[in-house]
């Protein structure tokens, strides 16, 4: 419980976020909440996500209005115990805003300066997003088929408190160059190894989602010395099948409406897929070569609804800590594959979650990754 009022501020989902829209309040003034309860829906240029209460208490004041767009860090509400006086709440607000005001411009400037950078990696030109620093080993986040680094917008920042965290667009994806060589997991893993070398990172914790999980497993097989630990989220290469209709539908969708339908297959809670997210995905897909890259990868990695790479043995022989996350409603790579995982793999399954646990259960997944990394380094 909080005797001292707690400032509720516009959260930052992903490094590129400089402002967000308070789509709606889900809690009324005077209502009591637990830590982790959803207080409001926040909409950014890429995603709509719930704003979870940082503590237990009572929502005392809504400062941001539904529909209002505010900079990251701006005060949107106040949480406190029910017995804190209204006068104290008002005093808190006045003080907070007085302290906050001069910093806004500076925050915005620093957020902009730390946007993604283009890194030349051999023949590839890769779009790379760096954040964080500290004593922990770096983390490399590898997104899935047709995705990009924004798939980690709810992951990267929370992991960056004690270490360097790097996300990037795989070859053929996002703002990276469009050649994918033969499109195989092996070729993509080689590009990842090359990226680590370019960034002067001898060893990193690897987090891979979906196809990126298959890339991570291939990296562990081919260059095990680079991998400190492996976190796999609904990974390819473990099960035998894939949703082939999704692969082609997602790669070929040439209208936002069609893309929306495909993206909704990724999640259990369809409300996560907003117009702006669809638009962002379409912007990447419209680039010359983007669809060809996905076609090449599809041909190299899948045969109709069969996965060509069987990487379970890599997992069985793994000498590093491994954990796996999977949504039980995953419509792309079935959760059934999780049952064949070796015993040494820590497995976290979520009901009512689709193919994107790192977004649908961001807080829980982030916490588990964080403690897993600490344990791996201990």
């Amino acid at each position, binding site marked *: 419980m909080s005797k001292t009022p707690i400032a509720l501020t516009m959260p930052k989902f992903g490094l590129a976020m400089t402002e967000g829209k308070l789509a709606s309040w889900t809690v009324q003034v005077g209502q009591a909440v637990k830590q982790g309860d959803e207080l409001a829906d926040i909409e950014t240029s890429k995603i709509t996500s719930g704003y979870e209460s940082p503590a237990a208490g009572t929502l005392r004041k809504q400062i941001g209005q539904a*529909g*209002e767009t505010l900079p990251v860090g701006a005060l949107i509400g106040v949480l406190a115990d029910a017995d804190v006086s209204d006068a104290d709440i008002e005093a808190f607000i006045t003080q907070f805003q007085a302290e906050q005001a001069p910093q806004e411009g500076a925050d915005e400037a620093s957020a902009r300066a730390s946007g993604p950078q283009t890194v030349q990696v051999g023949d590839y030109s890769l779009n790379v997003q760096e954040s964080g620093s500290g004593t922990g080993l770096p983390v490399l986040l590898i997104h899935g088929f047709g995705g990009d680094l924004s798939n980690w917008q709810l992951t990267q920042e929370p992991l960056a408190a004690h270490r360097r965290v790097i996300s990037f667009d795989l070859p053929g994806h996002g703002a990276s160059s469009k050649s994918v060589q033969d499109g195989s997991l092996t070729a993509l893993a080689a590009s990842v190894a090359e990226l680590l070398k370019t960034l002067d990172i001898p060893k990193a914790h690897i987090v891979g989602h979906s196809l990126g999980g298959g890339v991570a497993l291939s990296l562990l097989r081919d260059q095990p010395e680079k991998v400190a630990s492996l976190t796999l989220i609904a990974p390819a290469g473990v099960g035998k099948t894939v949703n082939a209709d999704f692969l082609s539908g997602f790669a070929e969708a040439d209208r*936002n409406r069609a893309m929306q339908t495909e993206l909704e297959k990724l999640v259990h809670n369809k409300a996560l897929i907003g117009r702006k997210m669809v638009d962002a995905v379409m912007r990447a897909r419209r*680039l*010359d070569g983007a669809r060809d890259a996905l076609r090449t990868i599809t041909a190299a990695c899948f045969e109709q609804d069969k996965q060509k790479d069987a990487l379970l043995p890599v997992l069985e022989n793994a000498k590093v800590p491994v954990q796996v996350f999977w949504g039980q409603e995953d419509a792309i790579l079935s959760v059934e594959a999780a049952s064949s995982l070796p015993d040494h793999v820590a497995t976290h399954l979520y009901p009512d979650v689709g193919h994107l646990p790192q977004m649908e259960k961001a807080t829980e997944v982030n916490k588990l990754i964080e403690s897993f990394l600490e344990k791996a380094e201990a």
Partner: protein
Amino acid sequence: MSKKSFRQAINEALRQEMRRDPTVVLMGEDIAGGQGGTSGVEDAWGGVLGVTKGLYTEFGPERVLDTPISEAAYIGAAAGAAATGLRPVAELMFVDFIGSCLDQVLNQAAKFRYMFGGKARTPMVIRAMYGAGFNAAAQHSQSLYPLFTHIPGLKVVIPSSPYEAKGLLIEAIRDDDPVIFLENKVMYDEEEDVPDESYTIPFGEANITREGDDVTIVAIGRMVGMANEAADRLEKQGITCTVIDPRTTSPLDEQTILDCVAETGRLIVVDESSPRCNMACDISALVAEQAFHTLKAPIKRVVPPHTPVPFSTPLEKLYMPSAEKIEAAVKSVMSQTTREVA
């Protein structure tokens, strides 16, 4: 990705397509400029407002062809070249000059495919500036897209921002039909993030730039920015609007308009072209015919008066639609709600 102006986005689209496809040629009046001048400078203008600057230097006189001031000849030549293996992009400078070459568009390029039983392809683009707000007066300020939209066989594209302009122009150049690509001259210095790579935006898919519950605003070209501005102001007052940028008036994404009107029950169309038989009429008719039962209030059109575009600044301002006029129109339809729709 970097900030690019509307002008740079168009220039980059042309440059990238010319590098990609050797059959893409440009023609127009002073698109290089300086031929036959006494200074010997051969890329003197790069278009009357500098949109094609530098292309002559890169691609030379065989791909960037300055023309005499002779619209019928070179617009017709673009049609003939398109039917025989090139992908010409002809710049008409101001769309008002269509009066000098309408036959080449209306009776030639637009008709070949149908008239020849499907045996012709005419992959040409006519780029032209349109729009008021530049004190360019009655013969250099018109928004003539309804004229082209009326003609079967033509596609009509009106980009609303630099990002849209690049993707739509590349799509236009790669398209196998004749495309009229209209650039609002007031927007050339507007900037936004535009990818450095080539990309295409398909025709016939509207872009929803704002989502709301109360009113659907369909706006065309430069009007999209004004509609967004109005929608943002109205949101602070508790009225939320959906803003639709059709991107292309031919083909027209009718479904998106109908879907959004079904959600909001109110429609405003913002159209900079003269009010009789313009896109606002066309879209109003569409909704009246196919979604009448979803309307809670009369449709409202925010359009200029039925006059030529005046020269003098205060008169031109009076003539033009604006964010303020759109805001007032939204409030008007909100107050005019005549019935509740189940």
